[in-house]
């Protein structure tokens, strides 16, 4: 992915100069290493700050919701699937977006890297397969494959499924043998262990809703947790309320989640709430053969009625 930046700047500059779009949504360097932030370029001069590297984990589809103007957006495989979901759910029109596709070799896990080195990280640079982390005392070289976000290591849709322009040629997809080993482990636990597992998983949650805000699917004008008439659930850190929030949010993403990992990445306390969304992703695949955001012509699993649906759980 090294070298994408120039091509992105060229495409973005051209689209803005020709007034094909009013704005290009991409990434620019953040104020801290490994923290690229979204960048909204509206003039051809502004595209100079656009970058692309292995720290572009934020899902840019999140910034398309209900846009009125014409926008171009830079999309990885997962982002492109979320754009498809947005179009299907009428959150943006297809002819309103110019999708600049990026074949993605994965994003690096900033939390894991921070844990692996001692001291404050001053700079992170990369080549195609390695990541070099510089602290005040030392320089450490990592194999990129070792420090990928888990969702990127398990990714099977690295190339955009929908695009108007591509930044580079498509890359080979990964052969991931078992995407759901960790979910199967939880499924095999007994009831008490399951309860305790999620107690431990969700205990650190401070209800900051960063996961919800980073998620392109969470675009409801008023989220169920913010409703007060009726108030569906408590707003504090009572373990039952925390649990209700996480499980219900996951359910709202059933059949829509593309496992982009934005939620986990945004979490300040490092909760792997993707375990919940991935369980639903797995169920959707097993029960309905459905994977979210692959085609504009297919209605989502939770949106179709079939007369021959067995529904064995309804008595």
């Amino acid at each position, binding site marked *: 992915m090294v070298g994408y930046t120039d091509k992105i700047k060229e495409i973005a500059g051209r689209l803005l100069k020709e007034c094909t779009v009013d704005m290009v949504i991409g990434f620019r360097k953040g104020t801290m290493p490994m923290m690229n932030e979204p960048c909204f370029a509206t003039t051809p001069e502004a595209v100079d700050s656009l970058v692309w590297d292995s720290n572009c984990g934020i899902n840019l589809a999140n910034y398309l919701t209900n846009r009125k103007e014409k926008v171009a957006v830079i999309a990885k495989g997962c982002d492109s699937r979320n754009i498809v979901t947005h179009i299907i759910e009428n959150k943006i029109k297809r002819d309103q977006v110019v999708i600049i596709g990026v074949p993605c070799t994965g994003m690096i896990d900033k939390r894991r890297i921070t844990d692996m080195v001692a001291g404050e990280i001053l700079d992170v640079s990369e080549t195609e397969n390695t990541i070099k982390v510089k602290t005040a005392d030392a320089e450490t070289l990592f194999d990129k494959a070792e420090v990928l976000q888990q969702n990127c290591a398990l990714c099977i849709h690295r190339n955009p499924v929908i695009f108007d322009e591509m930044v580079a040629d498509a890359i080979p997809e990964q052969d991931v043998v078992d995407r759901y080993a960790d979910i199967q482990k939880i499924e095999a636990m007994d*009831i008490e262990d399951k309860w305790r597992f999620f107690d431990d998983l969700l205990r650190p949650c401070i209800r900051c809703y960063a996961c919800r805000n980073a998620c392109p699917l969470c675009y409801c004008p008023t989220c169920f947790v913010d409703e007060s008439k009726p108030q569906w659930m408590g707003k504090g850190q009572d373990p*039952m309320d925390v*649990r209700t929030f996480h499980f219900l949010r996951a359910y709202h993403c059933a059949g829509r989640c593309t496992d982009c990992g934005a939620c986990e990445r945004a979490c300040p306390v490092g909760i792997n709430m993707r375990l919940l969304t991935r369980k639903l992703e797995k169920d959707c695949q097993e029960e309905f053969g459905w994977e979210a955001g692959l085609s504009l012509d297919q209605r989502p699993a939770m949106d179709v009625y079939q007369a021959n649906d067995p529904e064995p759980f309804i008595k």
Partner: protein
Amino acid sequence: MELMGIEPDRLHFSWISSAESTKFVNVVKEVTEKVKAIGPNTHFIKNTAKVA
């Protein structure tokens, strides 16, 4: 719900028309039996502050 650690027998789904009184009775009987068999719920209880 099962993944979360709630016993599957605690949660039942049924489609009953307002005209199907017998079905309703049978379903309620079945639900009560099953829930009694697993006993009182020990998880997913929110203890609200007691106000004196």
